């Protein structure tokens, strides 16, 4: 409120901003067409030059045979696709567990008050630990160490330990994403929920988490892409997933084309998800612009 010629209140400022002229769309569209053609021409020139430089490099023929051998490519592709189903099983199983465990961790870390200090402490140590130690070490230690104990009831299937290790490591990251989302929700939302007589848990369940999770879907998908790629790490446990299969094929033929083939498989799986993430971000931004009147 402005009293006696004080500064304008925010409502008045917003009203002034609202009167700003609309962007000059026609000018921008013309610019868009022009920059599009410039981008096309410069891309063609750039990639042509790059291609010419590579093909004329002194070692190109050897490299081509070693990495881009068509025969070996078509021989190894079906085997790699077959092995890749194991990677898919790995990341689908782990992702479900990660989303649940990470949410629990994030909620624990967000609990206020001194009573919940031990829970916050445990969750914080967990997150610190699993973010600090390389995932490959966790996989190796769990896969060889724990299953090597030979304890009754402890599974020895390396697939299980691979899922456990990936879940532990990625939950630490994903819980931080969730937590950022929870903390981005303004405290007035909780106040409004509590003022209706909702308990703290109910406020979290019905008001805060639904908004927080929606807000962090793009970064969650980002971590999901990371997880997909990191499934190759479990090849260290002797699991014959796609990377292990590529390694075997490479060793048998003394040719690295299977690695290139595998890279293509990952691209095909990952790129749509990456574009989908971009689309979600853009949609959210548009929606925000539309509503931030």
């Amino acid at each position: 409120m402005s009293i006696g010629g004080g500064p304008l209140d925010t409502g008045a400022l917003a009203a002034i901003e609202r009167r700003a002229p609309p962007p000059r769309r026609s000018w921008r569209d013309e610019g868009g067409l022009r920059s599009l053609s410039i981008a096309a021409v410069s891309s063609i020139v750039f990639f042509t030059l790059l291609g010419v430089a590579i093909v004329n490099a002194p070692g190109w023929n050897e490299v081509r045979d070693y990495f881009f051998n068509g025969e070996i490519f078509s021989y190894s592709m079906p085997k790699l696709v077959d092995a890749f189903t194991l990677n898919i099983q790995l990341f689908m199983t782990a992702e479900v567990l990660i989303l649940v465990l990470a949410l629990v961790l994030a909620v624990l870390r967000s609990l206020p008050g001194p009573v919940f200090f031990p829970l916050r402490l445990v969750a914080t140590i967990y997150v610190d630990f699993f973010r600090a130690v390389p995932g490959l070490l966790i996989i190796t230690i769990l896969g060889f160490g724990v299953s090597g104990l030979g304890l009754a009831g402890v599974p020895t299937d390396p697939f299980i330990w691979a899922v456990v290790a990936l879940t532990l490591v990625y939950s630490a990251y994903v819980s931080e994403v969730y937590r950022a989302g929870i903390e981005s929700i303004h405290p007035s939302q909780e106040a409004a929920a509590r003022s209706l007589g909702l308990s703290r848990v109910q406020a979290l369940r019905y008001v805060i988490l639904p908004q927080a999770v929606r807000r962090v879907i793009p970064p969650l998908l980002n971590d999901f892409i990371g997880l997909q790629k990191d499934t190759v790490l479990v090849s260290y446990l002797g699991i014959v997933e796609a990377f292990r299969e590529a390694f075997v094929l490479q060793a048998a033929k003394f040719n690295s084309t299977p690695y290139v083939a595998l890279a293509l498989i990952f691209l095909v799986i990952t790129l749509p998800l990456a574009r989908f993430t971009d689309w979600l971000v853009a949609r959210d931004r548009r929606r925000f612009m539309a509503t931030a009147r």
Partner: protein
Amino acid sequence: MTAPAGTTDAAASGPALEVEGLWKSFGSLHVLRGIDLALADHDVVCLIGSSGSGKSTLLRCINLLDSIDAGRIVVKGAEITARGVDVNTLRRRIGIVFQSFNLFPHMSVLGNVTLGPRKALGLPGVQADAQALELLGRFGLADKAREFPDRLSGGQQQRVAIVRALAMSPDLLLLDEITSALDPELVADVLDVIRELAYGGMTMLIATHEMGFARDIASRVCFLDHGVILEQGTPAEMFSEPREARTRQFLQRIIEAGRL
């Protein structure tokens, strides 16, 4: 839902609200310095005073959204600041409407209004919906039930927030500068709603900068200054012949700003 923790049975008696010796500080900043205030049933009390005088903090303390440092708050004979009371149960009986609406943006208007009745009171969905639609209709919002808050004007959003508080059938309604974030042309709609509630006998404690409104509607006006109620009286007394120099000074500034 669990039964109220033994507080409501004894609660039928006593004034709607009693605040005694309420102190509240944030760090070294003493925001409330011994507030005494009583509201009888159907009272409409307006809190006036400059920004930072403690109006909002007082309302938040009464709704237990902020803890208090000293003093007592008694609602219908039940001390709500006593140890071990069930704050969730108590809050259902005290509604609050905020300056910034604080609607839940991920829920429709109907979802906003029914959340409290469904989750805190345990009302079945059908019943909560029917009650909410009836209330929304009473305040001219029936056609907005399925809309999301970001599709509504500020005035409509604030009316939804009022309906949301009313859906809990509170004994006492706290209004925290509910028109301060609104464009001037939207203020009247919201104030009309409050006026209707006042005629309907709702007990209300209202922090406001709308002096004309306070003069019309209040059964009593309290002037808050640096965390104490410096002066209180009927609107006629307060606006025509205030006793305290600080009150006169404050009202003078309001008149100069063209708000009275």
